[in-house]
């Protein structure tokens, strides 16, 4: 088996992985960047609304304010030292992106423009029209091309982490072009594999967002944290789940029910359409349950009305919204309201790391959506996560590079044996798999289970039912068949490996959701409707055991260095 050596190995070519790669390259170490798709195809590309930082003060903004909005948005489950560092570094990173060519939208005087976003108390979200993620990803990917220290391995699918001697020493990956397995060894390995929205049927996430990195870390013994908190975005297009960005409300759009009422006045009158996502998603479901939804081909929706904004503003600031609505549901928002409903969008939870991106498994780091470094708590604020990818991508890349520079090489023989074992495992498991179950069928049943039972509102019973169904699905998966025996681009095999990860990660979502007997942020329990700080001002940690996840708890960090900490209090808007 071929062995490829780097000082730092990064899995993932999205915004977080590329930022980490550049930061590590600047430190002078050799960097390998492995990604299952070409970097510019990573799902960062689909982000629309923008990225938050204190880049203007004429709006009344300050670091303290951004910090407080983030903590309050998180329903006090964010680690406050981490949020503090985040707001302090945010502007540096977004201006760095500016110097790297990101075409940010501008004010007439040439300074960067900012827009309103949910849960942000002033305008502070920088944007590149409504294709912010697309522009950021292409700008950073193209910039990364000038660093000779970064060697890319595009379209390589990582199947497992190499753990030897208590350390992560790299990864095993399948080169899709040849179907061959290769070993990538490294002194520090960074997972920047993005989210896992595809665990659910109705999601804004791309087909590739299967949470592989969560699965890789979990299997290697690192804990996944706060997985009970997937974020539901209030405005997904029925049918496809395509996102209509929050910027549509930031620019002044209204949410109305079937009577044409702006129903948020009953839920969050002080913020209305600019409230945090968890609160608005719940309000939408409550409206539909009360019979005030608008029936449609794919069930009930509410309506997002942009008509009063006029076509000039829509064309200038929300052209992609117009394009998506026209193309996928045949509605021109200049003339008609858009039907929308809550949709799974983002995973607050992830591989538990400290502020340096270091996981409890030595040698293993994580950043971006795949990580739970402590920023987002129980509800992330829209436009904080692109910035999160940059701030923690950069820090993690730097720290990993410095660690790598001091770490001796691992024993080659032991690692090669691990690689051979992994190839043999996959061949034995899927090579001759001739059962009666199809990969696609199990994936879709899993997604429907999560959709039905692990939604915006949950109960202990629905969650236990979900756990039961997951067990059945896992049992069915032992009988999965893989018909494809061609080595080159065997996408059926890759899909089987992804679903294998998904079935395990789904359990790490359900298990802590059952145990967290409270409602906080995006977890709304009908049987425990209040927040309970006595018991649950803690992060969950899911460790893998033979019998499924074992859950432990870890206190939230409530202290800061220079900004004023925000003690937990009732979350009032």
């Amino acid at each position: 088996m071929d062995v490829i050596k780097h000082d730092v190995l990064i899995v993932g070519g999205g915004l977080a992985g590329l930022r980490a790669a550049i930061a590590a390259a600047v430190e002078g170490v050799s960097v390998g960047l492995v990604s299952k798709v070409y970097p510019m195809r990573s799902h960062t590309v689909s982000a629309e609304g923008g990225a938050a930082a204190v880049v203007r003060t004429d709006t009344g903004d300050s670091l303290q304010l951004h910090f407080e909005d983030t903590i309050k948005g998180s329903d006090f489950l964010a680690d406050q030292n981490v949020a503090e560092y985040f707001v302090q570094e945010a502007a540096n990173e977004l201006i760095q992106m500016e110097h790297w060519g990101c075409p940010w939208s501008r004010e007439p005087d040439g300074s960067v423009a900012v827009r309103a976003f949910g849960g942000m108390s002033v305008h502070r979200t920088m944007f590149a029209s409504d294709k912010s993620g697309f522009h950021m990803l292409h700008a950073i990917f193209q910039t990364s091309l000038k660093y000779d220290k970064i060697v890319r391995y595009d379209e390589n699918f990582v199947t497992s982490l190499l753990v030897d001697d208590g350390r992560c020493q790299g990864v095993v990956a399948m080169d899709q072009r040849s179907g061959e397995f290769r070993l990538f060894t490294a002194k520090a390995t960074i997972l920047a594999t993005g989210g896992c929205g595809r665990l659910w049927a109705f999601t804004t996430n791309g087909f590739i967002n299967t949470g592989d990195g969560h699965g890789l870390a979990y299997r290697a013994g690192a804990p996944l944290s706060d997985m009970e908190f997937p974020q539901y975005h209030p405005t997904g297009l029925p049918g496809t789940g395509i996102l209509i960005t929050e910027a549509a409300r930031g620019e002044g759009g209204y949410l109305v029910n079937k009577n044409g009422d702006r129903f948020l006045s009953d839920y969050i009158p002080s913020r209305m359409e600019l409230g945090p996502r968890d609160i608005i998603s719940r309000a939408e479901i409550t409206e539909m349950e009360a019979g005030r939804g608008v029936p449609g081909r794919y069930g009930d929706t509410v309506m997002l009305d942009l008509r009063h904004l006029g076509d000039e503003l829509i064309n200038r600031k929300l052209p992609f919204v117009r394009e998506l609505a026209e193309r996928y549901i045949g509605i021109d928002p200049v003339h008609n309201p858009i039907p929308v409903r809550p949709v799974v969008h983002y995973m607050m939870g992830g591989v538990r790391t400290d502020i340096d991106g270091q996981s409890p498994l030595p040698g293993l780091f994580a950043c971006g959506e795949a990580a739970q470094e402590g920023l987002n708590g129980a509800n992330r604020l829209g436009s904080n996560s692109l910035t999160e990818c940059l701030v923690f991508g950069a820090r993690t890349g730097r720290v990993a590079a410095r660690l790598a520079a001091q770490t001796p090489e691992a024993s080659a023989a032991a690692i090669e044996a691990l690689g051979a074992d992994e190839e043999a495992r996959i061949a034995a498991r899927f090579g001759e798999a001739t059962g009666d179950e199809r990969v696609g069928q199990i994936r879709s049943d899993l997604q429907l289970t999560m959709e039905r039972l692990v939604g915006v509102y949950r109960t202990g019973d629905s969650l236990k039912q979900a756990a039961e169904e997951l067990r059945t699905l896992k049992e069915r998966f032992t009988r999965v068949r893989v018909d494809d025996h061609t080595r080159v681009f065997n996408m059926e095999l890759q899909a089987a490996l992804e679903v294998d990860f998904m079935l395990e990660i789904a359990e790490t979502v359900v298990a802590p959701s059952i145990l967290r007997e409270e409602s906080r942020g995006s977890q709304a329990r009908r049987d425990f409707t209040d927040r309970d700080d006595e018991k649950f001002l803690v992060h969950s940690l899911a460790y893998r055991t033979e019998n499924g996840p074992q859950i432990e708890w870890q206190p939230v960090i409530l202290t800061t260095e220079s900004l004023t900490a925000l003690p937990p209090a009732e979350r009032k808007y």
Partner: protein
Amino acid sequence: MTESTIKLAVTRYRPGQDREPTVQTYTVPYHDDWVVLDALQYVKDNIDGTLSFRWSCHMGVCGSCGMMVDGTPKLTCAAFLRESYPREVRVEPLANFPVVRDLIVDIDDFMHKLSEVKPYIIREDLDSLPLGLGHELRQTPAELEDFKQFGMCINCMLCYSACPVYAMEPKFLGPAAIALAHRYNMDSRDQGRNQRMPVIGSSEGIWECTFVGECSVVCPKHVDPAAAIQRTKLATTNDWFKSMLMPWGNR
């Protein structure tokens, strides 16, 4: 009521197994809001797990899913079955690229060309510019407009597939790479034009491009690469004249 269906005629090629590409026909349910990609994924999940193709975003922005649909290069996540129904839909890999397998083509050539045109901001002080609040390089909305359109490229390769010059001359940098070079040349923050122009001006094929404009017709993002090529040619000619008149100037 029986469900309506539609036929997909899909090119298959599995290296090591098939000697040459063949066509396989699948019958899938017809929905008027399904795109070609939905139908392909239906095949993969329910009929034939061995069919390989690339996709991710399903919203026309990741650039993965370009294929020939009824003979025209299209994003399959934006090409609706209803555009063909009730006729069968012909799905082939993108023309002008080597086929790796089934509907997957090899785009290495473009990835190399992309690096060659130095698609990033070049300026001497780049790494020493201060960061943070108030330190953006100023750029007016009008300056942004000068290049924005050429920066909308999602690298979907539809334009290469439609380009008659690239079909004949694989060394041609091609529409998207030139559009991106032009995008950076036109960016008020950039000072790298002199480093990019030699790569582009000397490149094979640019002078053969006759402004057929097929690239701009198929481009799903209205990048208008044909316009970028024409402007680049003009600029290159100007540079050439300048270098003749002022042999030591501006070098």
